[in-house]
């Protein structure tokens, strides 16, 4: 399946782009992270500490063990600092 993957804040800076479309068969967010990390050092670096990352699937905050079935958009970012 094709999924849009979005990056924000320092995750975006480490990856070097704000979004990309990936072809993946990952069952969960964690599987997708592992696939990305295997690609290139910049992904390895961006995803080196998952505790400092948050994830949203189809624009809803979720956990790294969330399933990806039917998902169209996954976003990775650091803890939010709104307000």
């Amino acid at each position, binding site marked *: 399946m094709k999924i849009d993957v979005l990056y924000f*804040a320092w995750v975006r800076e480490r990856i070097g782009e704000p979004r990309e479309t990936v072809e993946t068969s990952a069952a969960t967010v964690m599987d997708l992270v592992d696939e990305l990390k295997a690609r290139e050092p910049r992904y390895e670096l961006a995803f080196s500490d998952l505790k400092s990352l948050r994830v*949203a699937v189809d624009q809803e905050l979720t956990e790294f063990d969330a399933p990806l079935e039917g998902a169209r*958009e996954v976003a990775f*970012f*650091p*803890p*939010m*600092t*709104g*307000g």
Partner: protein
Amino acid sequence: MRVSVQSEDFDLADVLKGFGKQPNTGATVSFTGLVRDDTGTLDHMEIEHYPGMCDAAIAKIAEEASARWALTDCLVIHRFGKLRSGDQIMMVATAARHRVEAFEAAEFLMDYLKSRAPFWKKEVTRDGADWVAAKDADEDALNRW
């Protein structure tokens, strides 16, 4: 209820005109967040946001507050983009029958916007640029609701 995510500044005066003008409104509270320059070295602040998710996340929080405190009116404006010292970053306003509800709902909205609305602040100073780190205290603040 009104939610707006925008790059333009807002005029607090204009925004509050007509806010909460219902016969059962006894109290209105407004909060405004401003860019602070603690060290005197800030050049600007850059606020990054997740466009699609922002509006939905804020609308959800505002609806929850409206229901929980029986608000008679509720408003959230959050800016993104390049801001300078003293600039307005965002505001919330709540209207309710009594003061306690209006205050609690405004604080609830702020606590959630701080940690659950997809915005990220970067401070650009003379000495470089740094992403503002989320504070444990802000995460802890959610536990009281």
